[in-house]
């Protein structure tokens, strides 16, 4: 039988009567959810890549002075660290972000040529660099973006480096990074004798002691032996380093503003819709519609805006991440993968945004006097 009217069908027809306004509102919420998916997804992927990098190299603890952004730790501290009984290896490293070309910037790591961290990399061509030589390894993604091969040269901060190898690391950060001898990075950065952190690999935990407990004990031992320094478990370092925290803060801050704009656009649409349909709401009330049912109708319309806008937003966000992960400027720090939990979270936020935005217009519509509503022009 044709012409069946369902409650949700009725809600959709109400939205579709003002197609342009509905489409613009959907566009607004889609952009807001898209921003959330892209920005928060990016910052989480960034954090995840840090964790993968630590896990891949087998680093248990990072020892830093103040913040991850400072390269102010004295390299001589390494000897004291290595003397501690629980420490198997303590390797100095520098981390920096540098412009390689006017278009491409990349993470640059300074490691010692015999660092255990290099063992985690797979060389797809060439060989490792040597300490004291202007030689570099390029992550495979970065090499592709720079169109460099083994034997080519690359100028960094006025020094010409020879590409000795192309590596494939366990994380996108390494795949998009330059790795060079520690001493060379200290030289080009004018940071002789200074390092960003020591990456520590511990001896195996004694039988019967949990790894977490063992790492915490080692942290305490390091901090007691080296007052003023912080020993941070690698997993915590991945989520709490200043760069990741900044990325999270920027992502959430920008997303919150975008979501607020999205919520306001739905609220505006629903408020206008309720105003325009005042008489129709009076008709519904005259026909026996309960207040809660009128509220439910308006909230359903707002929720549909949130959900459909949210679905579009998931596509926008995912597409943005895909785009960013393919651009040379951002490929090294953006992963195209988005977790299903993140998508579900975005979808939930879209639904809640719709319901929050529709709440006041729905309440107002439901509490109109039927007689006054019917008189409304």
């Amino acid at each position, binding site marked *: 039988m044709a012409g*069946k009217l369902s409650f949700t069908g009725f809600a959709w027809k*109400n939205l579709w009567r003002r197609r342009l306004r509905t489409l613009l509102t959907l566009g607004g919420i889609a952009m807001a959810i898209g921003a959330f998916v892209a920005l928060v997804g990016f910052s989480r992927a960034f954090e995840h890549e840090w964790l993968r990098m630590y896990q891949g190299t087998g680093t248990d603890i990072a020892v830093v002075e103040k913040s991850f952004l400072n390269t102010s730790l004295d390299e001589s501290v390494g000897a004291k660290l290595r003397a501690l009984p629980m420490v198997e290896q303590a390797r100095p490293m520098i981390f920096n972000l540098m412009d390689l070309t006017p278009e491409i910037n990349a993470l640059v790591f300074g490691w010692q040529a015999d660092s255990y961290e290099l063992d985690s990399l797979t060389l797809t061509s060439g060989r490792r660099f040597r300490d004291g030589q202007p030689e570099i390894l390029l992550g495979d993604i970065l090499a592709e973006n720079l169109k460099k091969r083994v034997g080519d040269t690359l100028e960094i901060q006025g020094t010409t480096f020879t590409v000795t190898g192309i590596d494939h690391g366990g994380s996108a950060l390494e795949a998009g990074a330059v790795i060079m001898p520690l001493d060379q990075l200290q030289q080009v950065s004018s940071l002789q004798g200074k390092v960003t952190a020591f990456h520590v690999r511990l001896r195996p935990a004694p039988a019967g002691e949990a790894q977490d407990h063992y790492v915490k004990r080692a942290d305490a031992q390091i901090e007691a032996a080296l007052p003023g320094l912080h020993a941070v478990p690698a997993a915590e370092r991945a989520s709490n380093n200043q760069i990741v925290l900044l990325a999270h803060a920027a992502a959430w801050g920008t997303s919150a503003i975008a979501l607020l704009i999205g919520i306001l656009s739905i609220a505006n649409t629903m408020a206008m819709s309720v105003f325009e349909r005042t008489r129709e709401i009076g008709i519904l009330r*005259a026909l*026996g519609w309960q207040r809660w049912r009128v509220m439910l109708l308006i909230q359903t319309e707002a929720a549909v805006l949130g959900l459909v806008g949210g679905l579009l937003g998931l596509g926008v966000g995912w597409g943005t991440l895909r785009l960013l992960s393919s651009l040379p400027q951002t490929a090294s720090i953006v992963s195209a993968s988005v977790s299903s939990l993140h998508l579900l979270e975005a979808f939930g936020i879209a639904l809640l945004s719709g319901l929050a935005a529709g709440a006041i217009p729905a309440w107002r519509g439901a509490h109109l006097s039927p007689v006054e509503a019917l008189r409304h022009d």
Partner: protein
Amino acid sequence: MINPQLEVRNLCKSYDEGRIEALRGVDLSIAQGEFLAISGASGSGKSTLLQLLGGLDTPTSGEVLFENRALDTAFNFDDYRAHRVGFIFQAFYLLPTLRAIENVQVPMLAVSQDAHNRAERAEALLCEMGLQHRLNQYANELSAGERQRVAIARALANHPSILLADEPTGNLDSVNSARIMEILTGIQKQRGMTLIVVTHENEIAHSAARQIRLRDGKIEA
């Protein structure tokens, strides 16, 4: 009158903090199945009386009783409007985004009813109104007479026992007016429904079994 279906006692309704008195002590009893016409000049209070009889508004003082039960704050007005009364308005008040058959289903959405049954009943009612060929037309694609017939079908959707019509022919030409009144009186007789029509047209008022005339918020003797 023994056991009236609808009764109003000393009904008063004022607006604007008492400055405008629309109804001033109206007493009225209406029997089940009666056809009552309420007439009067503009502003006499006839539409206000109809709204109070239909539970659309509450009186300032006095009471409305449906089957000896007072329509007051304890009474579920929504339930009363959904199940007991059907409204027909001068301006039809069809929802513009819906087809005729969907408009008739709108009151049924307020009560629990299967979607298939809703559509089936809406189609049957529209066929009864002679609109079997206009089921899928939107309001703006229907003539004024057709719109009012859709509105009558909508008013009958939830099997009410009372039909309340506020100037049902006010926007119609004489041919359509006669057709609509024929339909309404036919429904009243065949279904034994109470029909209360507010009108300023003498011809319609005279066609009712009983006529009351309001003047300045009171029933004229």
